[in-house]
């Protein structure tokens, strides 16, 4: 009986799901060269080209410059006069495609595997290209993302995907590039408030407890490193095998660490083991910029739109964090949080502009910088010749909610369908009331 109800529920859910997605198909490969003209082009590296053009063919950018494009006869021409062109935004840490409904629908949640050390679990294979959330995010210019596993101490391995695909194989933009580690924290209950407080029976201080966990990590990684040196292990260890890339430079270690001490420990850890590390979160990173800079460890800021951690902190500290890292010369990107909320990524970036960043720096934060940190900057992150044509046209400033207006978007030159469930529901009910849907 229970099963019947479950499958019935599944069926109903299936019908609902199919509604929004049915008419939104992934785009066909670019069939002819395209030129966008008359646009204000934000290259992504700080450069702005007024009255610029950009040409792309077979998915690659073939030219970019000021004025009119040379030799574009036979091209499809998009007149973008008065409009803005941006590189596709990149979201480096998200559960997009891994979660459909956050709560009360466990069956749609695929980001946390059970267990403590899971370097071998891969987010790519759980990435659901048919998620109805993806088109809503894409509509705000986010064209690439890295869906990541969560939970445990080592959460798993992730890949970068492009957000217009039939299946995860199509979606894969760069496979298995990062292993995710949650650095032990010495401050109890940091995230969950009082909930996380450990039993009072223990005589260990939080610092001792955290150090124990760190010691354990050193042991684990030392063994993994030794394992990586064995050409043909007598017994295969899938966890260590998944970590191999960390020691030969093909994978980066993304370490979630917000507190100053955690960050310091994590950077030292990576240095000792010869691992390329990325600090994720980095709320306190402005306090330890020297060690980050000295060791070339970048920070992915989780969000600018956050409350300060401590009552005493600058009320705007989260808004100012990008500026503080910029001024200190630390490499930083920005990711935003969750999955559906990623459509706010451009605004999370724009938030920093009132607090010391230039608009172009804010843009780089979610384009070039994120691309560099993910190791995909050779093919994307800026609008430069030879790179993938991952870009979009906005009617106005795309980092500001009152002006963003994504009208055309291209992933590898393919013209993306910008419709989504929300627009469809808007049209449906505007129709009911006889009002105009202002899309």
């Amino acid at each position, binding site marked *: 009986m229970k099963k019947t109800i479950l499958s019935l529920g599944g069926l109903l859910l299936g019908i609902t799901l199919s509604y929004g997605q049915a008419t939104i198909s992934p785009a066909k490969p670019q069939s002819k060269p395209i030129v966008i003209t008359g646009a204000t082009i934000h290259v992504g590296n700080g450069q702005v080209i007024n009255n610029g053009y950009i040409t792309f063919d077979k998915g690659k950018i073939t030219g970019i410059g000021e004025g009119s494009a040379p030799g574009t006869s036979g091209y499809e021409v998009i007149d973008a006069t008065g409009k803005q062109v941006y590189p596709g935004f990149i979201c480096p840490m998200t559960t997009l495609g891994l979660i459909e409904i956050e709560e009360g629908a466990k069956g749609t949640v695929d980001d946390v595997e059970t267990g403590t050390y899971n370097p071998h679990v891969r987010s790519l294979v759980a990435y659901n290209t048919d998620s109805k959330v993806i088109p809503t995010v894409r509509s705000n210019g986010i064209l690439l993302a890295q869906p990541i596993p969560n939970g445990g101490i080592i959460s798993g391995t992730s890949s970068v995907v492009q957000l217009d695909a039939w299946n995860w194989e199509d979606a894969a933009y760069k496979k298995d590039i990062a292993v995710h580690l949650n650095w032990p924290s010495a401050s109890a209950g940091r995230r969950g*408030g009082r909930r996380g407080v450990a039993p009072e029976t223990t005589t260990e201080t939080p610092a001792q407890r955290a150090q124990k966990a760190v010691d354990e990590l050193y042991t684990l990684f030392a063994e993994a490193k030794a394992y990586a040196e064995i050409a043909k292990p007598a017994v295969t260890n899938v966890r260590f095998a998944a970590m191999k890339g960390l020691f030969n430079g093909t994978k980066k270690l993304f370490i979630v660490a917000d507190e100053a001490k955690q960050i310091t420990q994590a950077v030292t850890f990576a240095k000792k083991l010869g691992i390329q590390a990325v600090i994720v979160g980095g709320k306190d990173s402005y306090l330890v910029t020297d060690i980050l800079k000295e060791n070339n460890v970048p920070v992915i800021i989780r969000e600018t739109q956050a409350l300060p951690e401590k*009552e005493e902190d600058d009320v705007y500290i989260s808004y100012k964090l990008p500026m503080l890292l910029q001024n200190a010369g630390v490499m930083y990107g920005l990711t935003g949080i*969750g999955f*559906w909320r990623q459509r706010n990524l451009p605004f999370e970036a724009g938030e920093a502009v009132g607090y010391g960043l230039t608009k172009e720096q804010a843009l780089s934060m979610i384009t070039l910088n994120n691309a560099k940190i993910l190791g995909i900057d050779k093919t994307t992150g800026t609008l430069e010749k030879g790179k993938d044509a991952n870009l979009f046209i906005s009617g106005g400033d795309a980092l500001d909610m009152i002006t963003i207006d994504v009208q055309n978007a291209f992933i590898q030159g393919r013209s993306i369908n910008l419709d989504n469930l929300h627009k469809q529901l808007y049209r449906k009910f505007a129709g009911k009331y006889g009002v105009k849907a202002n899309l």
Partner: protein
Amino acid sequence: MKKLLLFCFALMIYQLSRAQEKYPETFPVNGAWDVRPEQFAFINATIVVSGDQTITGGTLLIKNKMIEAVGAGIAVPKGYVTIDLKGKYIYPGLVDAYSTYGMPEAPRQAFPAGGFGGGRTSNPISTKAGAFGWNEAIKPEMSAKMVFHTNATTAADLKKIGFSTVQSLIHDGIARGTSVAVSLADDRDNFVMINDQAAANYSFNKGTAATNYPSSLMGTVALIRQTYYDAQWYKNQKEEYNISLDEFNKAQSLSQIFEASDPQSVLRAAKIGKEFGKQYIFKTDGQEYQRIDAMKGTGSAFIIPLTFPAPYDVEDALDARNISYAQLKAWELAPTNPGVMEKAGIKFAITSYGISNARDFWTNIRSAINYGLTEKQALNSLTITPAEMLGIADKVGTIAKGKIASFLITSNDLFKADNVIYENWVEGQQYVVSKMDITDLRGNYTLTGSGFTNTTIAIGGAPGTYDVNLSHTGADSTRTRGTITRTGDQVSIYFNLKGNPAGIIRLSGYIASASPITLKGIATIPDGSSVNWTATYTGPAPQGGGPGGPRGDAARPNVPVGPVIYPFVAYGNTEIPKAETVLFKNATVWTNEKEGILKNADVLIENGKIKAVGTNLSAGGAKVIDATGKHLTPGIVDEHSHIAATGGINEGTQSVTAEVRVADVLDAQDIEIYRQLAGGVTTSHILHGSANAIGGQTQLIKHRWGLLPEQLKVEGADGFIKFALGENVKGTNSGAGNQPNANLRFPQTRMGVEEVYVDAFTRAKEYKEARAIKGNNVRRDLELETLADIMDNKRFITCHSYVQSEINMLMHVADSMGFHVNTFTHILEGYKVADKMKAHRVAASTFSDWWAYKNEVAEAIPYNGKLMHDEGLIVAFNSDDAEMARRLNQEAGKSVTYGKMSEEDALKLVTLNPATMLHMENRIGSIKPGKDADVVLWSADPLSIYAVCEKTYVDGVPYWDFSKDADNQKRMKTDEARIIQKMVEAKNAGSATQRPAAARRRLYTCDSIEEENFVVKDAYTEMEKARAAASAESDDNNIKNQ
């Protein structure tokens, strides 16, 4: 083995047996009666009778545990044991107004196996057998006299401090029953009772009660209020017998003592007291200095502790970040509290309650004295004041004829650092704290004997804690510190004079003569041989002692302290800011009136109101702010917020909790208030959570940073109440033990939700009718009364809602039951039924773009606001989140993208429209002469991501100014650094320290369930919670639950 046990038992009997075994008259006696005259005379003493009177060279006569006479020149009759106290002092025995002496330990809360997933057993009503009340936390029937039993060990600890009488209470529950006043005499229970009904005790802490309700502080307040009303009703009814209510009534004539931790708690309790004509005595945590005027204003007496925080370990700068500014300030200012209380003229007793190390008591008293507490007040607060509070001032508290013979014999003024309490007589029974030395050994002595030449012994310190220094004079002079032990007349000293002679020398001796003092004995020198020695008194020892100096007084020295800040938290002000007269020149003014958005306009504010809007306004005496290129808007109004409340935001233990009020639990110290100001928010509607169909009453506040909770409330605002529909009410998403009665509470479906409303309003209707006819003969029910208010349009509904079916349902229930839904909040599928909402005149307060966080928001769209707006509804955007709240202007901006709303209409979503749905449109929400001067100056278009909130005014008071923020931070940092320096010095001086661990505030959303505060700490439950948290942690990695 058995033998060993027997031996142990015998040993125990021996230790417990008293010098004199007294029996009550009615008891049989084993062996010969041992009734003694018990007559003692204490002569030649300085007798401190009370704080006001001291007798020098006085005599104290006691007989049969009572004081027979006190005064100078009293002849000692025959038959008295005479004790000469020349040079010594007698003080009244101290009275501790708050203790749990002799009470059984509170039982641990039942926590069934499987608590990990299953939570506690659900107990909607009490499971206690007997004719008691429905809620286990209300236990006025608890009577301390029924469970009191003397405890020699605990008594000794208190007697060592100097106490002879204590209030002893059952420290468990909200109404804690009646307490006793007992002496600490080592005697039968029958003999130590001084007042068997000393006081009725209360608290906000549920303790071990297993009843589900209340799970929040606001539920606790409601329960207390309802209990008062029930007790009043009980007197005149004949339907039921109820021990709890009966005893509650009987205890009303006693002292009413309310345990309330901090000033805000005190004000909370005082408000209840005012409602029911009760003047509570407050037992607190000693933070009155933080709000001394308000504490004075309660008109209450206080019982305050001396639990001054230890300095924190601050050497590691990064760890020190975990200490809040408030904690630093509290460390510095805590010892000033008793002095501040005295200066304010508040009556208070001092308790030792909460002091973990008995030595700290006197150290902390002296710290308090160093910071302004007078010795006279200190004595009163430890004697007569607590005696009065406990109704035993005729028996203890001063040394007077006819009172109980409880007094202290001390070496010196009681409050002096080197004072020694020799004896604590309790009810005529001697208790030796430190053996009284008739011969004070302090002084310089010449040591003679074979091998000792030119050697001087200096005995210093205090009687009971002597120290000794030895010096050898001459060509090879040395000084060394020795060790001295005195047992009665036996004295032993050892020391090493480093070559004069070599090695450790041990002196074993006795007091051979008292005047001059001569010590004699045998010395053992390092080679094992013995010689005779004599030490002869030559004069008083010099002050200061030898190497190592005198034993330092650990009391905090009186060095200047920083100011109190309001509120007592980071970014608090030393002075509460005042309303200014300001002219904003040349701004873009978003009036939200028919004038629309005015360019290059001026706005004048004065006396907290908007005075004029126009161009080229004359400044007069106003401060002029050049607002060229800037935007001036009305203050932002958040229709749905959960900040500035404490003790839980959900009373989710019942499906209907209309009686609970956010108004009772406002927290004016919430840093989020300050952060809201920095985001241009001036007014917030603080809602109960969404755990139940009919939640609690809400409270509209303005962000008046630095004022008291009552002062945050918007005067004259209409009252609202929170309703909720959907998944939260059904308990869908709760689990992992964070909701106590998951899957038990009705309703579990949307079908059931409707019936909750139908039933509740049916009952309310009947209640209303019954009250109309029978008046007060019908029991006043705070829950039904609130529902009746809704039907009478005296209270208005804001209902948490998501899907169209339930929205439709509630509007139908409202129609059929005769009430009106004012606002649907969240209302993410409002766009599907906007026409029906329009027909029912319901306003909509929604999110800009939230969705996908649970199934009922699977079809939430960012065009919702626009569609409802186009349909003619009053639409607002709310936050339900402290972070989002401070950028609601941006959330409004999203409507410009999603649906292309005009900018003018968009700003109204977070200003005028929420003001309108809160019935406040005549006072706030637009810039119009006569309205409140709640205005915000922005650096750019306020809807833009690039806008920075530069200035925020509430009632014309500049509560936020970005240009001053850097200075404010710097000032705070400087003050922090100053206190940290002081802490390091305190630590270096030998003070015990504590590890930094800031208690960070919990942020509430609709779903927040908070029980922890109200459950007795228990290692097992804590462990279960930690496990549940670890599991929950993994799936709440980012999203806040709406």
